[in-house]
């Protein structure tokens, strides 16, 4: 009967829960909430995806179906790029509600993403979120506390602890049995998570990233199981175990996230888009206006071209110099724009880095960090979207500038404001507009997501081991070391 008594203790604990109205109602309430959160989030992700993908297709179609016109007009006509949720968003929507969903792409400028869902969502306070991530991070630990706070202290209060020890059950085995019971129920609560993950897999998420996400959540709940049984083992009374656990829960699940966020926000400054736009405008001064070929900023370029092609005037060049100037100006400007947007992204990253370090102090925060990074709903993923958008922007603008240089004659181009025939000739056919970099399919950055979430996974493992060792240590001593 080596494992037998552990198993019997666990089984008995289960029987106790099913007899207790309180435990039973907590189990039912938590299950309903978990299922509701999964349905709610899946529904939300699907509607959002459908809307945004619909808009994206419409945007591509309208761009490609534009009539014949001057290519530079298309640069100002611009294009829209929509951010779509990743498959694992059904578990953790992460930053989605707070991050802009669409960005206007045009020449000479980098716009911000606009219309984050929270802009028009109803505001119901800071904690109003019903996603599986929220349910597992905050509510399931509470369920486990309700089930387990008295697991060992109850035996102590009833005097059955001594009886158990006298029939050769060691304190360690009592603790193992209770931990097994609570751990098993934690595993059962993970069923809706598995359903959600399977759904994500059916939407194109690789099995191994989904399994990895499962491991993270399981480790987190296991950490709670250890914290709960350890507290129960160390307390003389169930009531004090309950108070202590509730205190721990409030600190970890309610306070740690907003506190970390406030520390990061006030500790590392982030000045935002407007400040950066003003700085960009100052930096761009003197780089030359790409619309104006006479701008002195292009004197050198012009002289070089004339020398290279051994011609006397720009009219004799084998291409339209206005297009070349646009191409050149866009490249110079984009370098400056990217310098500032990189700076902004670095500032945001520095803030997030503070939160990531604070995750070492709170397993809940560590799980939040792990979860958004593996789900692809983190700041990093959002910044990848912004970089991708910039790539799409620069790509189509420069393709259009190249057409401007190669397909239009300089003569027509300069006369187009006064001569209707020249104007007609500067319009190039609509089939040229099929140039957009394919953005409709969602790029799945598995490797990046795994490596970004890995430090947080380590933090979770660390917390789990730490809690397990603490628990085993206090449990070993049985009733000799009650606080």
């Amino acid at each position, binding site marked *: 009967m080596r494992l037998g008594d552990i198993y019997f203790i666990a089984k008995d604990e289960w029987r106790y829960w099913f007899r207790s109205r*309180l435990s039973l109602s907590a189990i039912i309430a938590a299950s309903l909430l978990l299922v509701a959160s999964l349905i709610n989030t899946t529904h939300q992700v699907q509607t959002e995806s459908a*809307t945004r993908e619909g*808009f994206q297709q*419409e*945007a591509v179609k309208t761009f490609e179906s534009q009539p014949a*016109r001057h290519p530079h*007009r298309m640069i*100002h*006509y611009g294009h*829209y790029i929509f951010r779509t949720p990743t498959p694992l968003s059904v578990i953790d929507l992460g930053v989605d509600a*707070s991050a*802009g*969903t*669409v960005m*206007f792409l045009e020449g000479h400028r980098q*716009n*911000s*993403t*606009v219309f*984050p869902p*929270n*802009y*028009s*969502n*109803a*505001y*119901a*306070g*800071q*904690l109003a979120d*019903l996603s599986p991530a929220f349910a597992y991070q905050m509510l399931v630990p509470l369920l486990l506390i*309700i089930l387990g706070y008295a697991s060992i202290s109850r035996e102590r209060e009833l005097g059955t602890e001594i009886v158990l020890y006298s029939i050769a059950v060691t304190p360690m085995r009592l603790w193992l049995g209770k931990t097994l019971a609570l751990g098993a129920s934690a595993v059962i609560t993970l069923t809706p998570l598995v359903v959600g993950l399977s759904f994500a897999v059916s939407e194109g998420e690789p099995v191994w990233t989904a399994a990895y996400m499962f491991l993270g959540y399981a480790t987190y709940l296991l950490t709670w199981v250890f914290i709960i049984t350890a507290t129960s083992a160390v307390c003389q009374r*169930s*009531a004090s175990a*309950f*108070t202590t656990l*509730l*205190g721990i829960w409030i600190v970890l699940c*309610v*306070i740690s996230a*907003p506190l970390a*966020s*406030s520390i990061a*926000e*006030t500790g590392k*400054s982030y000045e*935002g*888009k*407007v400040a950066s736009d003003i700085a960009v405008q100052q930096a761009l*001064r003197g780089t030359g206006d790409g619309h104006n070929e006479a701008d002195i900023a292009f004197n050198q370029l012009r002289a070089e071209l004339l020398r290279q092609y051994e011609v006397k005037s720009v009219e004799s060049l084998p291409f339209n110099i206005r297009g070349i100037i646009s191409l050149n100006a866009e490249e110079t400007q984009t370098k400056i724009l990217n310098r500032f947007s990189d700076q*902004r992204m670095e500032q*945001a990253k520095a*803030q*997030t880095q503070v*939160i990531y370090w604070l995750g070492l102090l709170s397993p809940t925060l560590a799980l*939040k960090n792990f979860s*958004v990074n593996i789900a692809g709903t*983190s*700041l990093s993923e959002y910044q990848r979207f912004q970089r991708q958008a910039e790539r799409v922007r620069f790509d189509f603008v420069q393709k259009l500038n190249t057409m401007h240089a190669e397909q239009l004659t300089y003569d027509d181009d300069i006369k187009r404001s006064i001569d209707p025939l020249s*104007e007609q000739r500067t319009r190039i056919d609509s089939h040229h507009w099929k140039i957009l970099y394919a953005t409709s399919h969602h790029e799945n950055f598995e490797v990046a997501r795994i490596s970004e979430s890995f430090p947080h996974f380590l933090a979770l493992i660390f917390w789990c081991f730490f809690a397990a060792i603490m628990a085993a240590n206090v449990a070993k001593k049985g009733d000799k070391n009650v606080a």
Partner: protein
Amino acid sequence: MLREMQREFNFAWKETALRSLIVVAFFLSAISLLAGALTINDQEDLALRLNTEIKSEQLQILKGKTDPGDIAYSLFHLTFDPPSELAFVAVGQRNELTWLHRVRLLALEGQIHETSDANPEILTLGHLDFSFFLSVLLPLLVIGLLFDIEAREHRDRRHELICSASRFGNRIFLIRAMVRSLLLAAAVTVPFIIAAINSNITLIQASSVIGLTLFQIVVWLALSQFITRRMREAATAGLSLISIWLVLTLLIPIIGKIFVEYRVPVPNGGSILLTQREAVNDAWDLPKTATMKPFTEAYPEWREYGDVGKPFEWKWYYAFQEMGDRTAKPIAQALYKGMRDRHEAMAWIALLSPSLLIERRLTALAGTDVLQHLRYIQCSRRFHAEMRHFYYPFLFHEKAMSESNLAEIPEFKPCAL
């Protein structure tokens, strides 16, 4: 009565657990006030700095310029919503809803929806401020303070003794709960009063905040009494109270939010953008009269200047910018109306949730809710209209701008709350 209270106070203060809880409450209150104040101070500094920067930038841009079309094209203005004096108490949705923009005379629908691109991870995790403390944490502190005041005595078999020893009978526990709540109220309000003295908020504002604090404590004192009267077991009482907290603070707001969002649909921002772009861009390909005819119908005073002879004229350019705005405006207005309707519908949900009620009251007082954002947007839109009315005479009369004209270019002034 007073003697009884005095004695209860002495009892309470001797308890280490109670003293530590009061200290924790004091520090949480102080930290949340500090965090809110730091956030708002940063925003004030930023607004001030950017306003100075953009002014000097404007001087640079205007140097040597006289063409009104060119000036209006390159001159950016800062519109912003400075935080109110009370904003440090409830940062609310200020971080989420943009409170500053950089605008010029071009189509406003292409500019007013820009965001500050704040760190979405910070926004998602939320922020600690006094409003969060009052609405979410304070009930938990009250529960922690009161959930076992009777159960503890039952356990030690002193309950009957205590009741019979007091002339208030078993109402002595109400007095005990009230005394402890008063201690908590003092620990929570003292940091606020210190913060209030160091700020410029009015006495009425300060008393409203204290009133809401007391309201929250009384609500949870009543709920605690209701539960602890009925539950002899400390843990059962505590659990019941935590469940009530979960329902009132989390579930009702969440379910209400889902319901309200389902019942009150809003147009998608994407359609505003796409509509506005088509309207603005189509103008380039259409005959000039397609823009100028509806424009002069809207502005009869410019009818005789409505002819556009050249392929490009500034007045036509700005006319089609405005006409583009007019096409997209109904969708934008519908969006704003939806936002307002959702906010108002949530008021009914808030009647069921004291926490949401407090959050809404505080953000309304502090001017950090969606209504204030919409007021600010309206203010920026009015400023844009003011600019149009300023520039149109120059554009239509094709008049160069003199030094004194430049000095008259409208400047944005934040609208009062």
